[in-house]
């Protein structure tokens, strides 16, 4: 049953499949792009599925992850988010918005030289928790911050 559901979810994510096909093609041509686009994580409809699919399931709360985002975002289509992390040996980080239709926003892998820091601008459909998960030393950690959204930025 669960297998069926998975298959359905996969076939439903048309855009995702296209992306993966392209990513696979790129890998063949020897580009520096490593992992294929994570269709399951980006297609997940709730945050716990998305976090598990992205490899951040069971993350423990940490105060060493600092999320800078506005308390109130007037325009949900452009919400600045800046994340830094004091945990040693961070290898990857992912941003989620709990109440977005697909909560997974982005993931970042830090290789030698990159600081565990990312700044970007994201879309939020409504007031929601912004959650950041990180991986360090084989363990996963997370932190959340609520952003109130006046005008949603998904669809329109």
């Amino acid at each position: 049953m669960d297998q069926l559901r998975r298959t359905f979810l996969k076939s439903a994510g048309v855009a995702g499949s296209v992306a993966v096909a392209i990513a696979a093609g790129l890998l063949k041509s020897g580009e520096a792009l490593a992992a294929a686009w994570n269709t399951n994580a980006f297609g997940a409809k709730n945050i716990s599925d998305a976090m598990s699919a992205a490899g951040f399931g069971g993350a423990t709360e940490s105060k060493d992850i600092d999320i800078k985002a506005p308390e109130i975002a007037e325009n949900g289509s452009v919400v600045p988010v800046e994340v830094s992390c004091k945990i040693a040996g961070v290898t990857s980080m992912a941003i989620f918005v709990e109440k977005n239709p697909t909560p997974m926003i982005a993931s970042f892998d830090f290789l030698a030289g990159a600081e565990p820091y990312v700044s970007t601008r994201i879309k939020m459909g409504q007031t929601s928790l912004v959650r950041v998960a990180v991986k360090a030393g084989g363990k996963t950690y997370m932190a959340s911050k609520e952003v109130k959204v006046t005008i949603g930025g998904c669809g329109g």
Partner: protein
Amino acid sequence: MAEGMKMRAALQGDVAEVKVLMSHPMETGTRKDAKTDKLVPAHFINQVVATLNGKTVLEAQWGTAISKNPFLGFKVKGAKAGDKIAVNAVDNLGNKFDGEVAVA
């Protein structure tokens, strides 16, 4: 369509703070065109790779919820003035975008 990227890399101590602004519609695939009332197909950058002097330092996967004309800031330790920082991005339609800047 998109015309690549604007980049800046400023050195603070031995850390280069890199800022990248890309030009891209970042369509979610759920937005309706106001005139035709049809869904605008998803069109978004989904993979980004940053290198320092040719060595990969950051790999990102993006979904549709990165804002239009994406901004990305990251920090690279051990960079020196004159080092080359390059960013390569690919969208879900296979279009490629490249940018390069010298650390200053």
